[in-house]
């Protein structure tokens, strides 16, 4: 039997914008850590530039943005493009929070892989990351 080398998946959990609702972000961060991922939490009130630089510095596999303030259409593209332009092209992009249904397809077109809205379970998020995080050699 072949033995797989298990890479430690690094996840950035970020709170961009002025939104202070961090219950979800903290619960997710803890659940991801309990699932065995390496989790970096940015803390609150991050500008898009701050999130991009954290993603690059930590060379993360996954960028998870938590936004409950309605500012996602303005903030997400800035972060997405910033991270890609800085060379982290294969990172998995997740958004969680209060995202109206009609905003989800445009976010996905811009490169967000998955949007988790209220009611999503921790297990779903963990499983999604396990299945889709990029494998780097």
């Amino acid at each position: 039997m072949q033995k797989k080398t298990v890479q430690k998946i690094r996840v950035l959990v970020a709170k961009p914008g002025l939104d202070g609702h961090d219950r979800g972000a903290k619960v997710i961060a803890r659940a991801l850590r309990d699932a065995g991922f390496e989790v970096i939490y940015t803390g609150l009130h991050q500008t898009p530039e701050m999130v991009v630089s954290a993603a690059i510095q930590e060379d993360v596999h996954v960028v998870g943005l938590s936004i409950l303030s309605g500012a996602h259409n303005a903030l997400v593209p800035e972060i997405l493009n910033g991270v890609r332009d800085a060379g982290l092209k294969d990172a998995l992009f997740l958004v969680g929070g209060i995202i109206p249904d009609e905003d989800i397809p445009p976010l996905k077109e811009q490169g967000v892989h998955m949007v988790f809205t209220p009611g999503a379970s921790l297990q779903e998020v963990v499983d999604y990351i396990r299945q889709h995080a990029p494998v780097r050699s």
Partner: protein
Amino acid sequence: MSEHEKKTTSRESWETRLKESEKKNPPRPARFTTWSDMEVPLLSTPEDLSAVGFDYERDLGYPGEYPFTRGVQRNMYRGKLWTMRQFAGFATAEETNKRFKLLLEHGQTGLSTAFDMPTLMGYDADSPRSLGEVGKCGVSVSSLDDMERLFDGIPLGDVTTSMTINGPAIVILCMYLAVAEKQGVPKDKVRGTLQNDILKEYIAQKEWLFPVRPAVGLVIDTIEYCSKHYPNWNNVSISGYHIREAGATAVQELAFTLADGLGYVEESLKRGMKIDEFAPRLSFFFDVHNDFFEEVAKFRAARRLWAKLMRERYGAKDPRSWMLRTHAQTAGVSLTAQQPYNNIVRVAVQALAAIMGGTNSLHTNSMDETLALPTDESVMIALRTQQIIAEESGVANVIDPLGGSYFIEALTTRVEREALAYIQRIDEMGGIIESIEKGFPQAEIANSAYHFQKQLEAKEKVMVGVNKYQTTEAKRALDTLYIDRSIEKRQRERLAELRRKRNAQTHQESLRQVREAAQAGQNLMPSILGAVKSYATLQEICDTLRGVFGIYRETGSF
């Protein structure tokens, strides 16, 4: 056989028969707990009351009298129904002004203002930090000009206004007082409540500007100034709502909220004020969550505990200082995006608990608030929910109808004791400011939030439509209110015009006075009033203060 033995025997024999019955109908889950995970007894009897040493006169007394367990008014809702106060605010001042007028026309009795994120954080609509956030979660107010439009045509002497703002609350208060002054409203006719509870921002809501100590200093400035000049203004609404929404249990919500209240009391006393000069104008704001009895017990325990603390710990003599007057809001976090019409029912049950708990004022959430800001129609249903309870259900006819229930009284005492134990731990840390700086309440809440989420995933707690009774059919779409980005553009243009038109010299001079007062540690109310009247913007004033006080950063622990 003595009376006691008779009772014991009858209880024992009942329990034997119970065991038989349970063979047929075993208990559904393994544990029966409240929403906050407190064990709930199968049955309460007079023994539960004697176990907690229940004494009617001491523990309940009469309504409107110490310790106010049964309510702060002598005739409660027979004299005056609770204030129905729906929180509103979105987009621009004009649009919120229209919503205010709609609510007033439909019988609402007080206004309540929600501000957008940039305003809450002390940024103007044209700041780069405001990108995408202007008018989204509330109304955008960057200067006195916006405040004038917000209350246009609403006589401020005839309404009570609540304003949900904290970090820059002192600036927004000054704008409101300036509008009232322009309308010619006498100072003692200015009524309402400023949330102005910065401590719970560091604990839960996380919209802060300055480090903890200077920020608390600003709160005390408003208390000191308004207790002299605006005798009917409530300076602080000490808020458990956000603490609960962030994941606290009912006991933690109560404990941290009262601990915050004690923090303001301590700091006001340090300024040389006397307890009875300011305590009567402190007010509270609690969440009202899913678990009916736990919530009723929490409101009753809150009044009793605060009254004791004010009288016994601080020697307050004025009964108004002992009274915990509170606003309540149904739990936003309990609303579900799945099957959103169910939210109407949740809100009704929660509203009923707040009223059975004796709240003085209530906001009922709209069913669509988990999706977006509420539409006019859903806001109306939420208001009608309160009116149906008030006018049709009969519960407002009688005071504290659950008082005396074996279960409720034992639970009230238990909630009170557990909250007091937390307050004592905080005292041992040196008070609430020190405990926040250590991250204690923050960590306790994060633990509870995680615990609850695990229980939800294990289906130990059930949310209908989320982890049980889900429907597979497509989500029934609600019409939601959409705030488009043109609002941001319009607000920027307006600000640009304001900056062009105003007298540059006057506003710069006024900002210099704010800076000097801050550096000298003076009460900042007079200088900020001057600055808002010269149309200095919110951010200009806040940046001036940031220059003196610095900014707050939280370590990102989870």
